[in-house]
């Protein structure tokens, strides 16, 4: 199955979000693909607040079986979370466990007024009751496959399929 063009999907996501996202909304990208996406969304939507980034490694529920992610990066939330209108941004939505971890981390910064979720692709396979408010495309992918967002040196985004387990 040919994968859709990530740049076209991003454009679709921007159009979808524009009428529903106020200038005071706070975008938080989830490492790594979600941060790339959030950068582009943040520019396109002309948001007033700086961009936040989050690495959910300290909140993952598979730490006990897989250990700590060796490439954990610092989370950077340069604004108040208490009372904020937050949009979490992730590249590929799958089991929902990453978003569960992100919500837990978010609430350790304060009590947001509202949290919404934007994702480029939903590949199904949810294991938790989590759904995106903004979504560019749904894709059917085998359990043995993994979709990943890539960014080229000139900043262009693209989707690739790998055998599952080949990357974190």
């Amino acid at each position, binding site marked *: 199955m040919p994968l859709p063009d990530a740049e076209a999907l991003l454009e679709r996501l921007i159009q979808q979000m524009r009428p529903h996202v106020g200038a005071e909304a706070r975008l938080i990208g989830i490492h790594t693909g979600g941060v790339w996406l959030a950068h582009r969304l943040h520019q396109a939507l002309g948001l007033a607040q700086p961009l936040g980034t989050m690495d959910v490694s300290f909140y993952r529920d598979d730490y*006990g079986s897989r250990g700590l992610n060796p490439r954990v990066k610092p989370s950077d939330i340069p604004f108040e979370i208490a009372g904020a209108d937050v949009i979490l941004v992730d590249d590929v939505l799958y089991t929902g466990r990453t978003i569960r971890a992100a919500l837990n981390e978010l609430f350790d910064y304060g009590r947001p007024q509202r949290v919404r979720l934007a994702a480029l692709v939903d590949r199904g396979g949810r294991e938790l009751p989590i759904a995106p408010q903004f979504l560019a495309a749904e894709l059917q992918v085998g359990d043995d496959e993994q979709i990943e967002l890539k960014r080229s040196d000139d900043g262009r985004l693209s989707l690739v399929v790998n055998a599952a387990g080949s990357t974190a």
Partner: protein
Amino acid sequence: MAYNPQLNANGELQHLLTIEGLPRAVILHILDTAHSFLSVAEREIKKVPLLRGKSVFNLFFESSTRTRTTFEIAAKRLSADVINLNVGTSSQSKGETLLDTVANLSAMHADMFVVRHGQSGAAHLIARHVAPYIHVINAGDGRHAHPTQGLLDMFTIRHYKKEFSGLRVAIVGDVLHSRVARSQIHALTTLGVPEVRVIGPRTLLPANVAELGVQVHHDMAQGLKDADVVIMLRLQNERMNGALLPSAQEFFKHYGLTPEKLALAKSDAIVMHPGPMNRGVEIDSSVADGGQSVILPQVTFGIAVRMAVMSILAGNS
């Protein structure tokens, strides 16, 4: 790779006993992870759930305030349950052996031991006898090693100097009795610091210290010249009255870090001290409290570094 009791079959860190022989990649991994823990301390809720349900036993056979407290804070910020045992005043004084104490605490379902002991090798001994799911961290053993102090010092140097290559680092004072100095020297050479100097009177430098790959100086003016980092060691009070030193005043005159001596180092040199400081013995108050001192940031960084070590160890089960 030579056998290293700290690493498991996959080359991952199982215990942290000494920096000697620790691969550069493992040290950098700990420093990188600690960097990610720094921001946790700035949040509304300064906790992450990694060690939820785990029991960390602080086993201190030697007294310590700062090290024990920072280990306790680190474990609590990882959501572990922390049990502090001041063993000097308990079972051991009734005759229980070290390994029996550890076996009893293991029977209470300990997951991690943080061990400080006056005897070199105590943490190694415990690590060899615990069940495979238990992790041991050496928090100082005799004159041998204090690896988390060495790591937090490397974190501090990297924080202010960015790169290790091209640095001149001077370690000043009682190197002979210092497990901290030994850990620092191993870490600095492993991380590729090209010039590590030790400065002190002959009586307080180990005879074979040059074999560790350091330059030996007995004169502060020579040793501090153009240094990027000056690490002062604590002069232990009990050494002052013996044959090793004439007096604390005499030591301060020659080796105490004053603004005049510090001026010989680079103008942007940082001053470090593992604590507790003896003001007016190894360091002048105006230096300890001055603009080049990073002694208090060292303490803050120590919590993040200990969080990194604990969470990496507990994840490698």
